[in-house]
């Protein structure tokens, strides 16, 4: 759990900060074209960040950082027969390797979501107030965020956090044939988990929209 969380912190901070910067920049810039008024930018930005971009982008990053890591690890264990060696000594590789990572991934996904949203909002506030001169108090408003946004986002976090280690470990265990096989498994884990996150995100968002959550 420590390694999943700690190693991803700097990475998540960096990517989410740039995401926050760009979203506010684009939103303000586009808004200036149609509206004279930049007051909704902050609340809308925070709301979208919490509900849409927060879970999605954090999950995408977790998929590249953690998913690839798990696949690389289990993959190299598979091709060097370490998994087989476990089986002969009666240790269950899934129980031994996957279960701890599965639990850690779900918890860290939620933690990193909170952290990522905070970083992105901080970065967004910076550019909103300094570059576009929006009042700090107007910008940092939760009026665009509802409890249902939070619940939907939390639900997404749990689902994404669960899907990533399963997909990654699966491609790791299926690795064959030396170092090339490990490379393949890692690639497959990244692509599958990135795509699955986007697909699940779409499904959850659509259902949530339909039910008016």
């Amino acid at each position, binding site marked *: 759990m420590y390694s999943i969380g700690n190693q991803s912190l700097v990475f998540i901070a960096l990517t989410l900060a740039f995401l926050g*910067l760009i979203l506010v920049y*684009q939103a303000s810039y586009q808004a200036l074209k149609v509206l004279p008024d930049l007051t909704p930018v902050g609340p809308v930005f925070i709301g979208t960040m919490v509900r849409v971009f927060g879970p999605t982008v954090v999950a995408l990053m977790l998929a*590249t950082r953690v998913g690839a890591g798990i696949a690389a690890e289990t993959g190299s264990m598979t091709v060097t027969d370490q998994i087989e060696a476990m089986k002969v000594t009666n240790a269950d590789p899934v129980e031994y390797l996957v279960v701890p990572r599965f639990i850690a991934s779900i918890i860290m996904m939620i933690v990193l979501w909170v952290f990522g949203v905070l970083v992105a909002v901080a970065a967004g506030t910076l550019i909103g107030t300094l570059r576009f001169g929006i009042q700090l108090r107007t910008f940092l408003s939760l009026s665009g965020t509802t409890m249902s946004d939070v619940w939907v986002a939390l639900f997404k976090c749990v689902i994404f956090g669960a899907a990533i280690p399963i997909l990654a470990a699966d491609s790791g265990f299926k690795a064959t044939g030396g170092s090339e096989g490990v490379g393949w498994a890692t690639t497959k884990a990244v692509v599958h988990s990135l795509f699955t996150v*986007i697909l699940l995100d*779409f499904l959850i968002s*659509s259902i949530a929209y339909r039910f008016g959550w």
Partner: protein
Amino acid sequence: MSKPVETDSFLGNFGRTFITAFQTVGAMTLLQLRIFRSLLAIKNFDYDESVTQLFKIGVRSLPVVIATAAFVGALMVVASGNFVRATGATTLIGWAAGTAVFSEVGPILIGLMFSGRVGANNTAELGTMVVTNQIDALRVLGINPIGYLIVPRFMAMIVMLFFLTAIGDLFALTGGAITCRAVLGIDMRIYWQGILDSNLLSEFIMGLVKAIFFGGAIAIVSCHWGLQVTGGARGVGRAVNDSVVTSAIAIFMVNFFITVLWT
């Protein structure tokens, strides 16, 4: 010889991260220079290898890019759906989805997907060649690995990501249109009209420019980590991991700077 002090504090960790980051960036710049030098020596250009790479990269990533793009477009429409429902401004949906897809979300997500599919694969391939001594074998045969292996990949990735982004944009808008009808229950014509009315040519071109830079960045990052591999199967996996992570950071950073400079 003194052993480096192992600090496990947060600050020490942070400092180490930064030092490695600078070393990595330095090494990548060197690689970039070597690529350009090889590009100038046009007589060494390997036509066969370039065609192979173009074909492999394009075919390999087209399905996944199309699928991603379609869902990304759909996702953007659903995301704007909440605000449209709140304000009732259905005409804005085409504009919102179009801008987002063309200028930011489209290039970024297609870039991420490309780095996962092509970049990671490239790192794995080169890394395997390193650990199995195939790179040394090239050198022993008097063939320059940069000219023979890296330059064709560099060019193929730039070209292919450019086209894939253009195609992806189209599919993203289509995905958005279908979702507009199916999930939001808004007539597709309103959506398409919204896109046409909002004159998004500049955003579209900016997205393609981004794709060129993303392609170059992914190529350099993935080749760098591939050539860096040490330590067998485990090393290859770790390199792929580093490669996708660095590519993601590079994509978000390059994206920010291009947007700011463009507008």
